């Protein structure tokens, strides 16, 4: 949770800094932090879908001697 809190703090501080000095790119201040959260969660969800589609399986159990 410390990591999450620190990340939130950085996002807020950088967003405010961007708004104060009016320096931002395609999105309003804080927009890229939202993109980071949404894209991150979407990629994790996509990875889970890929796993459920059968492209991931448990590692092989150790083989019995002579098997």
């Amino acid at each position: 949770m410390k990591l999450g809190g620190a990340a939130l703090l950085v996002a807020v501080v950088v967003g405010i800094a961007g708004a104060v000095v009016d320096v931002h790119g395609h999105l309003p201040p804080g927009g890229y932090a939202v993109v980071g959260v949404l894209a991150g969660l979407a990629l994790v969800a996509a990875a889970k879908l890929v796993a459920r589609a059968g492209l991931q399986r448990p590692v092989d159990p150790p083989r019995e001697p002579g098997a």
Partner: protein
Amino acid sequence: MIHPAVPYLLGALLVALGPVPLRRAVAVTAPLVALALVWTAPDGASVAVRLFGLTLVPLRIDALARAFAIVFTLIGVLGGIYAAHVPGRRFHVAALVAGAAGVGIVLAGDWATFYVAWEVLAVASFVLVIDGGTPAAGAAAIRYLLMHLLGGSLLLGGLAWIRVAGGSPAVGALEPGGAGTLVLLGFAVNAAIPPLHAWLTDAYPESSPAAGVLLSAFATKAAVYALARVFPGTELLVWAGCVMAVWGVVFAILEDDMRKLLGYHIVSQVGYMVAGVGLGTPLALSGVVAHAFCHILYKGLLFMATGSIVHATGRRRLSGLGGLARPLPAVAALYMVGALSISGAPLLNGFVSKAMIVSAADAAAAPAVAWLLTVASVGTFLSVGLKLPALVFGGPSRTGVASPVPAGMTAAMALAAALCVLLGVAPGLLYRLLPFDVGYVPYTGAHVIETLELLAGTTLAFVLARGALARKATITLDMDRVYRAAGRAVVRVGRGIERGAVALEAGVFAIVDAGVPSRRALASPVGYAVLVALGALGGFLVLVR
């Protein structure tokens, strides 16, 4: 003028014949001499020789070739330092020959020299994989060789077509279509463009820690060079690159094997480069060269760090690692430099190079491309910058450190990390090597703020999804699943044909034995062959109906 491949090849000869201390010295000095030769070669230098009636141009220096040759020799030096503790003759010979082939490809001015160097790289890389020394490494090496022979055959077919059609023997721009399509497919195998990428994540993790550093540098980046040289502005590559960038990160998020995870990130990062080649603008092509240069350094660093962990613990699965920051603090710190570089954090080289390609997409009015590459960047930080270090270096200890990390390994990592920082804080050093003077300024307020926001947002996503990213001992099949299904289908069809032929053969003999029709006609070799072929066809049709 001496070709930079010459010190490599002489070094390989010395290593093959010399004692162990000589091997270690040559492994570093040969690429160092080659680096000096590339660095001091005048722009536009060219060497031509006549051989077997062909005019070969083994050396042609321009900005594109020089940038790739410099970084190939640079990673050769770092790889030589990293592998200083490796006594094996086979490894050092293969590493030096791979280095010679790498510079041979990027400096070749004619297709014949290019093709020979291309195939030599495939064989040397095969030996580097097999040097992993395990049965799994041997099997992966065979699969690696088969895929690269396929790619080489496609390339050779395309080059032969060009030759027959009276095309230019000089390595230069081609159009997709006809011979160009074969050449493009040959390059696509080496560039690991899905669905032709499975060889990479199959073979690289099985190689030895030292071999992984070199493998991560040469094959895919030689293909990026070739694509930039031959197919700039090919729109198909824009979308192929976007697919690669996202595909790589999705599978990296799933992956439990840390070296395979890095393999998926090669696919993803090469995706940026392939997309940049497809965009084809001066900014995009300079971005491709810059990103290939930086990628070789930070990916080499990441493979060095994970190789050090394998060396120290004998393990490479995230599910079997943990708490290594305490026993391996230098490795953890240097790994993080590589991880933040690949994630595009400010003050590191990835911040400079990745943004060039994304900006080129913006400038080319391709916002979908820019956004897809941005999403891929989120996945990169999520898996390489957060998941892997959290599971390997954080948490309770899960394994002891059996072997200390040799000084050469640490020194090579420190040098690679220093170069990542140097190019991050002084991008002008990198810009001098690029093919176009594009005047790109990476350190704008907007770019820094966007990047910091993106990294912070990704960290929040990691915290929210931490349960889904927990340790899990799994194997990822990826395209292997398709290959396996296709292989099983081929076997089924073959068996069907065999069964049909056998049944028909029995029928034919029954007819011949009965005397109807003429024994002579059916018992003749031609008649027999025709009937067997018809039987096989019948069997096939029955099977596929």
